Protein backbone atom coordinates (compact mmCIF):
# COMPACT_ATOMS: atom_id res chain seq x y z
CA UNK A 1 0.00 0.00 0.00
CA UNK A 2 1.41 3.38 -0.99
CA UNK A 3 1.90 6.29 1.39
CA UNK A 4 -1.00 8.09 -0.22
CA UNK A 5 -3.22 5.06 0.27
CA UNK A 6 -2.08 4.75 3.89
CA UNK A 7 -2.88 8.40 4.50
CA UNK A 8 -6.26 8.04 2.85
CA UNK A 9 -7.04 4.98 4.93
CA UNK A 10 -5.96 6.69 8.14
CA UNK A 11 -8.29 9.57 7.31
CA UNK A 12 -11.10 7.16 6.56
CA UNK A 13 -10.59 5.36 9.86
CA UNK A 14 -10.69 8.63 11.72
CA UNK A 15 -13.91 9.57 9.95
CA UNK A 16 -15.36 6.16 10.69
CA UNK A 17 -14.49 6.52 14.35
CA UNK A 18 -16.23 9.89 14.48
CA UNK A 19 -19.22 8.40 12.70
CA UNK A 20 -19.44 5.69 15.33
CA UNK A 21 -19.83 8.50 17.86
CA UNK A 22 -22.70 9.96 15.85
CA UNK A 23 -20.74 12.70 14.08
CA UNK A 24 -22.79 13.58 11.02
CA UNK A 25 -20.17 15.98 9.73
CA UNK A 26 -17.79 13.04 9.44
CA UNK A 27 -20.47 11.12 7.59
CA UNK A 28 -20.91 14.00 5.17
CA UNK A 29 -17.17 14.17 4.50
CA UNK A 30 -16.99 10.47 3.81
CA UNK A 31 -20.15 10.52 1.70
CA UNK A 32 -18.83 13.30 -0.53
CA UNK A 33 -15.43 11.64 -0.73
CA UNK A 34 -16.82 8.35 -1.96
CA UNK A 35 -19.82 9.49 -3.97
CA UNK A 36 -18.00 9.87 -7.28
CA UNK A 37 -16.27 6.49 -7.27
CA UNK A 38 -19.38 4.74 -5.99
CA UNK A 39 -21.48 6.25 -8.76
CA UNK A 40 -19.00 5.08 -11.36
CA UNK A 41 -18.59 1.67 -9.74
CA UNK A 42 -22.33 1.07 -9.51
CA UNK A 43 -22.84 2.37 -13.05
CA UNK A 44 -20.98 -0.77 -14.16
CA UNK A 45 -23.89 -2.72 -12.66
CA UNK A 46 -26.81 -0.59 -13.78
CA UNK A 47 -27.55 2.57 -15.70
CA UNK A 48 -30.62 3.35 -13.63
CA UNK A 49 -29.82 6.39 -11.53
CA UNK A 50 -32.59 5.64 -9.04
CA UNK A 51 -31.05 2.26 -8.27
CA UNK A 52 -27.57 3.75 -7.99
CA UNK A 53 -28.82 6.47 -5.64
CA UNK A 54 -30.66 3.89 -3.57
CA UNK A 55 -27.59 1.67 -3.35
CA UNK A 56 -25.35 4.56 -2.27
CA UNK A 57 -27.91 5.66 0.30
CA UNK A 58 -28.17 2.12 1.65
CA UNK A 59 -24.40 1.77 1.64
CA UNK A 60 -23.83 4.81 3.84
CA UNK A 61 -26.85 3.97 5.96
CA UNK A 62 -25.13 0.67 6.78
CA UNK A 63 -21.74 2.34 7.20
CA UNK A 64 -23.33 4.82 9.62
CA UNK A 65 -24.88 2.04 11.66
CA UNK A 66 -21.92 -0.34 11.53
CA UNK A 67 -19.09 2.19 11.89
CA UNK A 68 -18.39 1.04 15.43
CA UNK A 69 -18.11 -2.59 14.36
CA UNK A 70 -15.54 -2.03 11.62
CA UNK A 71 -12.86 -4.61 12.37
CA UNK A 72 -10.02 -2.98 10.48
CA UNK A 73 -9.06 -6.18 8.68
CA UNK A 74 -9.12 -4.35 5.39
CA UNK A 75 -8.90 -0.79 4.20
CA UNK A 76 -11.98 1.28 4.88
CA UNK A 77 -12.35 1.82 1.14
CA UNK A 78 -12.48 -1.94 0.60
CA UNK A 79 -15.11 -2.22 3.31
CA UNK A 80 -17.19 0.59 1.78
CA UNK A 81 -16.93 -0.80 -1.74
CA UNK A 82 -17.99 -4.23 -0.51
CA UNK A 83 -21.07 -2.78 1.15
CA UNK A 84 -21.87 -0.79 -1.97
CA UNK A 85 -21.51 -3.86 -4.17
CA UNK A 86 -23.95 -5.86 -2.04
CA UNK A 87 -26.34 -2.93 -1.81
CA UNK A 88 -26.21 -2.58 -5.59
CA UNK A 89 -27.02 -6.23 -6.14
CA UNK A 90 -29.81 -6.05 -3.56
CA UNK A 91 -31.31 -2.94 -5.15
CA UNK A 92 -31.24 -4.64 -8.53
CA UNK A 93 -33.09 -7.65 -7.12
CA UNK A 94 -35.66 -5.47 -5.37
CA UNK A 95 -36.36 -3.55 -8.53
CA UNK A 96 -36.48 -6.73 -10.57
CA UNK A 97 -33.77 -5.26 -12.72
CA UNK A 98 -30.95 -7.10 -14.36
CA UNK A 99 -27.41 -5.78 -14.38
CA UNK A 100 -26.97 -3.22 -17.10
CA UNK A 101 -27.28 -4.34 -20.69
CA UNK A 102 -24.55 -2.35 -22.35
CA UNK A 103 -26.25 -2.73 -25.74
CA UNK A 104 -29.08 -0.56 -24.54
CA UNK A 105 -27.06 2.30 -23.18
CA UNK A 106 -24.62 3.19 -25.86
CA UNK A 107 -26.85 6.07 -26.96
CA UNK A 108 -27.12 7.71 -23.56
CA UNK A 109 -23.67 6.97 -22.30
CA UNK A 110 -22.26 10.28 -23.42
CA UNK A 111 -23.55 13.51 -21.91
CA UNK A 112 -24.18 16.25 -24.42
CA UNK A 113 -21.53 18.47 -22.87
CA UNK A 114 -18.78 15.88 -23.17
CA UNK A 115 -15.73 17.12 -25.00
CA UNK A 116 -15.07 15.25 -28.21
CA UNK A 117 -12.09 13.32 -26.90
CA UNK A 118 -13.97 12.15 -23.84
CA UNK A 119 -16.92 11.17 -25.97
CA UNK A 120 -14.67 9.15 -28.22
CA UNK A 121 -13.11 7.40 -25.24
CA UNK A 122 -16.47 6.68 -23.66
CA UNK A 123 -17.69 5.20 -26.91
CA UNK A 124 -14.59 3.08 -27.15
CA UNK A 125 -15.01 1.90 -23.55
CA UNK A 126 -18.68 1.23 -24.10
CA UNK A 127 -17.95 -1.03 -27.03
CA UNK A 128 -15.66 -3.07 -24.87
CA UNK A 129 -17.74 -3.20 -21.69
CA UNK A 130 -20.86 -4.23 -23.54
CA UNK A 131 -19.20 -7.54 -24.28
CA UNK A 132 -18.41 -8.27 -20.67
CA UNK A 133 -20.57 -9.84 -18.00
CA UNK A 134 -21.57 -7.71 -15.02
CA UNK A 135 -19.07 -9.52 -12.80
CA UNK A 136 -16.30 -8.93 -15.32
CA UNK A 137 -17.18 -5.24 -15.59
CA UNK A 138 -17.11 -4.92 -11.82
CA UNK A 139 -13.67 -6.54 -11.63
CA UNK A 140 -12.32 -4.33 -14.41
CA UNK A 141 -13.67 -1.25 -12.69
CA UNK A 142 -12.24 -2.23 -9.31
CA UNK A 143 -8.80 -3.06 -10.71
CA UNK A 144 -8.31 -0.45 -13.42
CA UNK A 145 -10.74 2.23 -12.36
CA UNK A 146 -10.25 2.28 -8.61
CA UNK A 147 -6.93 0.46 -8.25
CA UNK A 148 -7.82 -2.35 -5.89
CA UNK A 149 -5.62 -5.43 -5.57
CA UNK A 150 -6.82 -8.94 -6.29
CA UNK A 151 -7.23 -9.56 -2.57
CA UNK A 152 -9.28 -6.38 -2.18
CA UNK A 153 -11.53 -7.34 -5.08
CA UNK A 154 -12.00 -10.81 -3.62
CA UNK A 155 -13.01 -9.23 -0.32
CA UNK A 156 -15.38 -6.80 -1.99
CA UNK A 157 -17.07 -9.44 -4.13
CA UNK A 158 -16.85 -12.08 -1.41
CA UNK A 159 -15.35 -14.69 -3.66
CA UNK A 160 -11.99 -16.49 -3.93
CA UNK A 161 -9.00 -14.68 -5.38
CA UNK A 162 -8.86 -17.33 -8.10
CA UNK A 163 -12.34 -16.33 -9.21
CA UNK A 164 -11.27 -12.70 -9.44
CA UNK A 165 -8.21 -13.70 -11.46
CA UNK A 166 -10.37 -15.69 -13.85
CA UNK A 167 -12.86 -12.87 -14.31
CA UNK A 168 -10.08 -10.37 -14.94
CA UNK A 169 -8.33 -12.66 -17.38
CA UNK A 170 -11.43 -13.35 -19.43
CA UNK A 171 -12.40 -9.70 -19.39
CA UNK A 172 -9.01 -8.72 -20.75
CA UNK A 173 -9.13 -11.35 -23.46
CA UNK A 174 -12.55 -10.15 -24.56
CA UNK A 175 -11.48 -6.52 -24.55
CA UNK A 176 -8.32 -7.33 -26.45
CA UNK A 177 -10.23 -9.16 -29.14
CA UNK A 178 -13.10 -6.71 -29.38
CA UNK A 179 -11.71 -3.25 -28.96
CA UNK A 180 -10.33 -1.59 -32.04
CA UNK A 181 -6.60 -1.36 -32.28
CA UNK A 182 -4.77 1.76 -31.31
CA UNK A 183 -2.18 1.91 -34.03
CA UNK A 184 -1.85 5.46 -35.20
CA UNK A 185 -4.31 6.87 -32.65
CA UNK A 186 -2.51 6.35 -29.39
CA UNK A 187 -3.31 9.27 -27.19
CA UNK A 188 -2.29 7.99 -23.84
CA UNK A 189 0.80 9.42 -22.31
CA UNK A 190 3.22 6.80 -21.10
CA UNK A 191 3.91 9.02 -18.10
CA UNK A 192 0.84 7.50 -16.53
CA UNK A 193 2.90 4.43 -15.85
CA UNK A 194 4.64 4.74 -12.50
Amino acid at each position, binding site marked *: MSDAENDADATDRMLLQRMSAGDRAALAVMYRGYHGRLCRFLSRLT*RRTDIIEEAINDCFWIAWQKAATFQGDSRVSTWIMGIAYRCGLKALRQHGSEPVDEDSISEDRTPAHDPGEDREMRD*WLGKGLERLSADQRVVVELV*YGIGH*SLDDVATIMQCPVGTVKARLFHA*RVKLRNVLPGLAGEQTINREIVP
Partner: protein
Amino acid sequence: MTFQKDIGRDCPRAWEAMPWVIQGGASPTQGAWLNMHLAECQACREEFAQQERLRAALDMPCDLPIDAEAGLARLLARIDEADPQRVTPPRRAFSSSWLARGLVAAVLIQAVGIGVLGIKLNSDRNEHAAAPAYRTLSQDTASAPAGSLRVVPASTMKVADWNALLHEYHLRVAGGPNDVGAYTLVPTEGAQATAQILESLRANPGIRLAEPVSAAP
Protein backbone atom coordinates in the same frame (compact mmCIF):
# COMPACT_ATOMS: atom_id res chain seq x y z
CA MET B 1 -5.24 -17.46 -23.22
CA THR B 2 -4.71 -16.70 -26.84
CA PHE B 3 -1.95 -14.33 -27.81
CA GLN B 4 -2.39 -13.67 -31.47
CA LYS B 5 0.75 -11.59 -31.43
CA ASP B 6 2.80 -13.60 -28.96
CA ILE B 7 6.42 -13.32 -29.87
CA GLY B 8 8.19 -14.49 -26.75
CA ARG B 9 8.05 -16.61 -23.66
CA ASP B 10 8.02 -13.54 -21.39
CA CYS B 11 4.78 -12.26 -22.86
CA PRO B 12 2.48 -14.17 -20.44
CA ARG B 13 4.45 -12.75 -17.51
CA ALA B 14 4.16 -9.27 -19.02
CA TRP B 15 0.44 -9.83 -19.50
CA GLU B 16 0.09 -10.70 -15.82
CA ALA B 17 2.05 -7.68 -14.67
CA MET B 18 0.36 -5.04 -16.84
CA PRO B 19 -2.71 -4.22 -14.70
CA TRP B 20 -0.71 -3.82 -11.52
CA VAL B 21 1.96 -1.71 -13.16
CA ILE B 22 -0.71 0.48 -14.71
CA GLN B 23 -2.69 0.97 -11.50
CA GLY B 24 0.43 1.43 -9.38
CA GLY B 25 0.20 -1.77 -7.40
CA ALA B 26 3.30 -3.45 -8.79
CA SER B 27 6.68 -3.43 -7.14
CA PRO B 28 9.42 -1.24 -8.63
CA THR B 29 11.26 -4.38 -9.71
CA GLN B 30 8.19 -5.69 -11.52
CA GLY B 31 7.68 -2.33 -13.17
CA ALA B 32 11.28 -2.13 -14.33
CA TRP B 33 11.16 -5.62 -15.77
CA LEU B 34 7.97 -4.85 -17.69
CA ASN B 35 9.46 -1.71 -19.16
CA MET B 36 12.42 -3.71 -20.35
CA HIS B 37 10.15 -6.26 -21.93
CA LEU B 38 8.00 -3.64 -23.60
CA ALA B 39 11.08 -2.12 -25.17
CA GLU B 40 11.69 -5.38 -26.97
CA CYS B 41 8.13 -6.59 -27.67
CA GLN B 42 5.84 -4.81 -30.12
CA ALA B 43 2.81 -6.94 -29.33
CA CYS B 44 3.03 -6.29 -25.63
CA ARG B 45 3.57 -2.58 -26.25
CA GLU B 46 0.31 -2.47 -28.17
CA GLU B 47 -1.42 -4.45 -25.47
CA PHE B 48 0.03 -2.21 -22.79
CA ALA B 49 -1.08 0.90 -24.66
CA GLN B 50 -4.57 -0.49 -24.87
CA GLN B 51 -4.52 -1.30 -21.17
CA GLU B 52 -3.47 2.25 -20.44
CA ARG B 53 -6.29 3.58 -22.52
CA LEU B 54 -8.67 1.28 -20.72
CA ARG B 55 -7.43 2.66 -17.42
CA ALA B 56 -7.82 6.25 -18.66
CA ALA B 57 -11.32 5.56 -19.95
CA LEU B 58 -12.37 3.90 -16.70
CA ASP B 59 -10.88 6.81 -14.77
CA MET B 60 -13.30 9.27 -16.32
CA PRO B 61 -16.00 10.49 -13.95
CA CYS B 62 -19.37 8.83 -14.00
CA ASP B 63 -21.42 10.07 -16.91
CA LEU B 64 -24.74 9.74 -15.09
CA PRO B 65 -26.28 12.85 -13.52
CA ILE B 66 -26.42 11.91 -9.83
CA ASP B 67 -26.42 14.77 -7.33
CA ALA B 68 -24.23 14.03 -4.31
CA GLU B 69 -25.69 16.80 -2.14
CA ALA B 70 -29.27 15.70 -2.80
CA GLY B 71 -28.31 12.13 -1.94
CA LEU B 72 -26.60 13.24 1.25
CA ALA B 73 -29.66 15.27 2.24
CA ARG B 74 -31.85 12.19 1.76
CA LEU B 75 -29.46 10.09 3.81
CA LEU B 76 -29.45 12.59 6.68
CA ALA B 77 -33.23 12.81 6.52
CA ARG B 78 -33.38 9.03 6.70
CA ILE B 79 -31.17 9.07 9.78
CA ASP B 80 -33.37 11.76 11.32
CA GLU B 81 -36.44 9.65 10.68
CA ALA B 82 -34.88 6.52 12.03
CA ASP B 83 -33.42 7.97 15.21
CA PRO B 84 -36.76 8.82 16.84
CA GLN B 85 -38.10 5.38 15.83
CA ARG B 86 -35.13 3.71 17.39
CA VAL B 87 -34.93 5.74 20.62
CA THR B 88 -37.87 7.96 21.36
CA PRO B 89 -40.84 5.68 20.82
CA PRO B 90 -39.70 3.18 23.40
CA ARG B 91 -39.17 6.08 25.77
CA ARG B 92 -42.59 7.42 24.95
CA ALA B 93 -44.10 4.02 25.39
CA PHE B 94 -42.20 3.65 28.63
CA SER B 95 -43.25 7.07 29.80
CA SER B 96 -46.88 6.76 28.77
CA SER B 97 -47.02 3.29 30.22
CA TRP B 98 -45.91 4.51 33.60
CA LEU B 99 -48.16 7.53 33.35
CA ALA B 100 -51.12 5.29 32.62
CA ARG B 101 -50.16 2.98 35.45
CA GLY B 102 -49.87 5.94 37.80
CA LEU B 103 -53.24 7.24 36.80
CA VAL B 104 -54.82 3.83 37.25
CA ALA B 105 -53.17 3.49 40.64
CA ALA B 106 -54.45 6.92 41.66
CA VAL B 107 -57.96 6.05 40.55
CA LEU B 108 -57.79 2.75 42.42
CA ILE B 109 -56.54 4.47 45.57
CA GLN B 110 -59.32 7.01 45.26
CA ALA B 111 -61.87 4.24 44.73
CA VAL B 112 -60.57 2.28 47.71
CA GLY B 113 -60.55 5.43 49.81
CA ILE B 114 -64.07 6.31 48.82
CA GLY B 115 -65.12 2.74 49.48
CA VAL B 116 -63.52 2.71 52.92
CA LEU B 117 -65.03 6.07 53.70
CA GLY B 118 -68.42 4.86 52.51
CA ILE B 119 -68.16 1.70 54.62
CA LYS B 120 -67.08 3.75 57.59
CA LEU B 121 -69.96 6.16 57.14
CA ASN B 122 -72.38 3.30 56.71
CA SER B 123 -70.92 1.62 59.78
CA ASP B 124 -71.34 4.82 61.69
CA ARG B 125 -74.91 5.00 60.54
CA ASN B 126 -75.51 1.43 61.70
CA GLU B 127 -73.93 2.28 64.98
CA HIS B 128 -76.18 5.28 65.17
CA ALA B 129 -79.09 3.05 64.27
CA ALA B 130 -78.30 0.63 67.06
CA ALA B 131 -77.36 3.37 69.42
CA PRO B 132 -80.73 4.28 70.92
CA ALA B 133 -80.41 1.58 73.52
CA TYR B 134 -77.24 3.11 74.76
CA ARG B 135 -78.12 6.76 74.58
CA THR B 136 -79.31 8.87 77.39
CA LEU B 137 -82.40 10.92 77.22
CA SER B 138 -80.33 14.01 76.68
CA GLN B 139 -78.74 12.59 73.58
CA ASP B 140 -80.00 12.83 70.04
CA THR B 141 -82.80 10.35 69.46
CA ALA B 142 -83.26 10.78 65.80
CA SER B 143 -81.58 7.45 65.02
CA ALA B 144 -83.72 5.31 67.35
CA PRO B 145 -86.06 2.78 65.66
CA ALA B 146 -89.60 3.91 65.16
CA GLY B 147 -91.83 3.10 68.11
CA SER B 148 -88.97 2.79 70.58
CA LEU B 149 -89.70 3.57 74.17
CA ARG B 150 -87.46 4.78 76.91
CA VAL B 151 -88.50 3.24 80.16
CA VAL B 152 -87.13 3.60 83.71
CA PRO B 153 -88.31 0.86 86.02
CA ALA B 154 -88.52 1.43 89.77
CA SER B 155 -85.52 0.19 91.71
CA THR B 156 -87.79 -2.09 93.72
CA MET B 157 -89.12 -3.88 90.65
CA LYS B 158 -88.17 -7.51 90.53
CA VAL B 159 -86.65 -9.04 87.42
CA ALA B 160 -89.51 -11.47 87.11
CA ASP B 161 -91.98 -8.62 87.11
CA TRP B 162 -89.91 -6.75 84.53
CA ASN B 163 -89.77 -9.79 82.25
CA ALA B 164 -93.48 -10.35 82.66
CA LEU B 165 -94.14 -6.75 81.72
CA LEU B 166 -92.01 -7.07 78.58
CA HIS B 167 -93.79 -10.26 77.65
CA GLU B 168 -97.21 -8.81 78.25
CA TYR B 169 -96.69 -5.82 76.06
CA HIS B 170 -94.56 -7.61 73.44
CA LEU B 171 -91.53 -5.46 74.11
CA ARG B 172 -87.88 -6.25 73.77
CA VAL B 173 -84.96 -4.58 75.48
CA ALA B 174 -82.86 -2.96 72.76
CA GLY B 175 -80.52 -1.15 75.08
CA GLY B 176 -79.82 -0.04 78.60
CA PRO B 177 -79.83 0.50 81.31
CA ASN B 178 -77.90 3.74 80.90
CA ASP B 179 -76.44 5.95 83.59
CA VAL B 180 -79.84 6.93 84.86
CA GLY B 181 -81.28 3.41 84.70
CA ALA B 182 -83.28 3.89 81.49
CA TYR B 183 -83.97 1.02 79.11
CA THR B 184 -84.74 1.33 75.45
CA LEU B 185 -87.59 -0.96 74.51
CA VAL B 186 -88.77 -1.75 71.02
CA PRO B 187 -92.14 -3.30 70.23
CA THR B 188 -92.05 -6.75 68.68
CA GLU B 189 -94.60 -8.51 66.53
CA GLY B 190 -98.03 -8.43 68.11
CA ALA B 191 -97.37 -5.30 70.14
CA GLN B 192 -100.10 -2.75 70.64
CA ALA B 193 -99.90 0.79 69.46
CA THR B 194 -97.20 2.82 71.11
CA ALA B 195 -99.66 5.16 72.71
CA GLN B 196 -101.54 2.29 74.31
CA ILE B 197 -98.35 0.70 75.59
CA LEU B 198 -97.20 3.98 77.02
CA GLU B 199 -100.49 4.48 78.75
CA SER B 200 -100.33 1.01 80.28
CA LEU B 201 -96.71 1.40 81.36
CA ARG B 202 -97.34 4.77 82.94
CA ALA B 203 -100.19 3.21 84.89
CA ASN B 204 -97.91 0.50 86.19
CA PRO B 205 -96.62 1.40 89.71
CA GLY B 206 -93.33 -0.38 88.94
CA ILE B 207 -92.50 2.02 86.10
CA ARG B 208 -91.14 5.39 87.04
CA LEU B 209 -90.82 6.78 83.47
CA ALA B 210 -92.17 5.78 80.07
CA GLU B 211 -91.64 8.04 77.07
CA PRO B 212 -91.54 7.57 73.36
CA VAL B 213 -87.97 7.96 72.01
CA SER B 214 -89.05 10.16 69.18
CA ALA B 215 -90.57 12.66 71.48
CA ALA B 216 -88.69 15.04 73.67
CA PRO B 217 -88.61 13.83 77.26
